[in-house]
Structure formats: structure tokens, C-alpha cells
């Protein structure tokens, strides 16, 4: 199918699909950051059992294929009387997996800080919470900008999981399946989606680099 014909027929749906991918990505990434930060706080807190919980969380969700987790959320959770719409299922899946990776990014950011600054803060009389807020989190976040940029792109690509559910309206990958079950679209529908993914990723990467240059901590 030539590109012009594809766009004439499905152009509007592509726009909707792209917007759906964007909104899934934005909501998921917000969740990834919040949950990733919480898990990271658990992993560095002074209470050992909480640290173990945080580490366990990362080990579990970093090592489960997203698609398996999605199947679990969609088909197994209803048995526990947890029933969500497909969009929520996809977001929860992406957030669970993404936050494990996000926490790893923050941990490597924290590891660049060094115990010396923490000791200096403690000897000034700052409490654990103050040290987190004033010293640890700002530095960890600022040195995690580039890995977080990569994670944002990965989160966007992972939202393609939604194509495995009957979510309406479909996102970019779901739309390709939809088109190819209705017509013999050939490779063109894939190319159109791929360009949309790549274009978005390019913008994310560009902006991420700019932010990193601006906030990078000179050491």
C-alpha cells in the first residue's frame, strides 16, 4: 500500500494513535519516576528490612518480561477481584517494570555522591529526611538525567505492549496490527509507526541532552 493511500485512509487514526502513545508514555513515566524514587528511598533508608524490600522489588520487576507481567495483570488480577480497564493495565505494567530500572538509575546517581558529603551533612546536624531532600535526591536526579532520558524512550517503546490488548483507541503498534488485519498493508504501516516512534525518541534525546548539559554537576 503506498504511503499516500495509507494516510488518506488511516491518517486520522495515526494521529490519534500517536497521541495515545504519547499520553500512555507521559502518564507511565510520571508513575515510573514517583515509584522509582520511593523504591530508591527504601533502598537507602537506615531500616534494613525496608532496604531488603526495595532491593527485592527491583530484582523482581527488572527480571520479568513486560508481556508476562501484562498477561498477569490482565488475566490473573481479576481472580483477586482487581479489574482494571486495558489502559490502566498497560500503565501499571509499564510503571512496575520501568520503576525498577528507574531506581537503578537513581542508585547509580546516588553512588556518585560519595559518603563524604553525607557525613558532612550528618555532622551539620541534618536529619535523614533533610539529607535526602537537600543532598541526595537533587544530586542523584541531576546525574541521572541521561539514563532517565534513555528510560523515557524505553518506556515509550514499552507502551507498545498495549497492542496485545483490545485497548481503544489503539496506540501506534496496535494500529499497525489493526490495519494489517483489515487490509494487506505490507510494510508501509510499520514504517509509518516506526517513523513516529523514532521522531519522538529523537526529540526526547535532544531535550534530555540539553537538560543534562544545563544541570550537570561539575566535579
Amino acid at each position, binding site marked *: 500500500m503506498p504511503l499516500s493511500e495509507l494516510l488518506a485512509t488511516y491518517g486520522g487514526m495515526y494521529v490519534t494513535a500517536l497521541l495515545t502513545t504519547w499520553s500512555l508514555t507521559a502518564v507511565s513515566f510520571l508513575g515510573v519516576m514517583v515509584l522509582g524514587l520511593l523504591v530508591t528511598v527504601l533502598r537507602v533508608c537506615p531500616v534494613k528490612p525496608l532496604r531488603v524490600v526495595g532491593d527485592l522489588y527491583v530484582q523482581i520487576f527488572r527480571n520479568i518480561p513486560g508481556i508476562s507481567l501484562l498477561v498477569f495483570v490482565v488475566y490473573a488480577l481479576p481472580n483477586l477481584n482487581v479489574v482494571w480497564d486495558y489502559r490502566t493495565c498497560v500503565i501499571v505494567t509499564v510503571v512496575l517494570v520501568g520503576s525498577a530500572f528507574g531506581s537503578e538509575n537513581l542508585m547509580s546517581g546516588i553512588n556518585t555522591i560519595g559518603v*563524604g558529603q553525607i557525613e558532612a551533612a550528618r555532622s551539620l*546536624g541534618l536529619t535523614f529526611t533533610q539529607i535526602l531532600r*537537600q543532598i541526595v535526591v537533587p544530586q542523584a536526579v541531576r546525574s541521572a538525567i541521561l539514563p532517565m532520558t534513555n528510560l523515557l524512550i524505553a518506556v515509550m517503546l514499552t507502551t507498545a505492549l498495549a497492542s496485545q490488548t483490545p485497548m481503544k483507541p489503539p496506540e501506534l503498534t496496535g494500529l499497525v496490527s489493526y490495519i494489517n488485519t483489515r487490509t494487506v498493508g505490507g510494510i508501509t504501516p510499520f514504517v509509518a509507526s516506526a517513523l513516529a516512534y523514532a521522531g519522538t525518541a529523537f526529540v526526547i534525546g535532544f531535550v534530555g541532552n540539553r537538560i543534562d548539559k544545563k544541570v550537570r*554537576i561539575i566535579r
Partner: protein
Amino acid sequence: MTDTAQTPVIQLKDVNKHYGPLHVLKDINLTVDKGEVLVIIGPSGSGKSTLCRTINRLETIDSGQILIEGRPLPQEGKALAEVRAEIGMVFQSFNLFAHRTILDNVTMGPVEVLKTPKQQAQDEALVLLDRVGVKEQAAKVPAQLSGGQQQRVAIARSLAMHPKAMLFDEPTSALDPEMINEVLDVMVGLARDGMTMVVVTHEMGFARRVADRVVFMADGAIIEEGAPEEFFTHPKTKRAQEFLDSIKGH
């Protein structure tokens, strides 16, 4: 000699600490009176840094007691943070907050811990930065300063808390030789102004000039203590004699 009647600012009683099988602090007994400058010297691995760090509980102890103005050092939590706020600490590696300006480094403690209004904290910080000679650098970040400048900022950061005593853990050991004096000069000034100080150092000239008392440590124990002139010219123990001989060439 009126000071001796008062409660010591810092007091250690029978303090012991182990790192696994290694006995790093052995029955340490030590008092530091108000306004006193105590210098701790000794070979590396003698436990002098560890001793210094136990005083604000950056290192825990296994047994014994540490008293700050007669009160036992709290083990954790807010009570410990409050005591730490009253004791300044200067580290070998400066440990300035890398993401904050020099000015912010100095105002952090007063604003966060003492709840000083920000403007007042900044005014006070600038006075302190001026006193240690780095006021012009206030808007820069730590990495833009030389080691000597960073260490002077670290001293100002501690002073901003109006500490009752200050701990110096080898404050000049990480500095290039030409920067050592600019830091020592600030410390001499503090001592002259009556600050209570515990200084772990290899700078024997500083010890001789400024210390009220010198403590010599080896293998985790206090081997000898006394007035600096007496200690450096007539050490009582063989161990101290050997140590002084070994550094004489420098």
C-alpha cells in the same frame, strides 16, 4: 586555670572499638576543656582518625562512654542530630556539597537545622567567607575552587553553626604543599579566638605552635600525652621517640 572547674566540653571514658578482630580503640580516656586545643598525632593506622570520628558518632563505639558537656552522646535520631549540630567537623577531603554554591554550602546548616532566616544566614555566611578569605568565590561551585579554598569554605560551613567545639580530621593531608599554610592560618586564628578544637594532623609545626596538649596514639591506644614543647623535646615513651625520629627528616 579557671576552666578546670567546669565540665569538660568533650569527655571519653574507657572507649573501645573493634573492626572485626582488629582492636582499633583501646580503653581511650580523654578530656577536652573549653577553649583547649588538643592535637592528636601518631602513625597511620593508630586509630587517631577513628577516635576523632567517634566524638560526633560518625563511628560507633563498642563500649565506654562519650560525654558532650557532661551529657552522654545520643545513639541516633533527632537527639544525635542536635548534638552534631553543636560540634563542627572538618574532613580530610573537604566534603563540600557539589551541587550547591559556596554560599549555599555555608547557609545550609543554619537554614535547615537552626531555622535561621535565609537572608540573615547569607549575611552571616558572607562574613565568615570573608574571614577565611574566600568571599569572592561565594557564587561559584566547589569544583571551581582550589583544595585550600575548599577546605577554608568547609571551615566556614562548620563555623556557621556556632559550634561549641570543632573536630579536624587531617584537614591538610589532601592539600598541595603550597595550600597547607592558608588552611593552617585559619585554624591558628580559630585557636587564638578561643575555639575548643580537636585536631588530628601530621603538621608538627602547627602542633608545637598552637596545641595546648598533644596526644600521641599508636596501635589504637593513647601512649603519651602532654604539653607540646615537653612532648616534642623530651618524649617519655620509646614509641613516641621512634615516631618523632621517623618524621624528623621531613
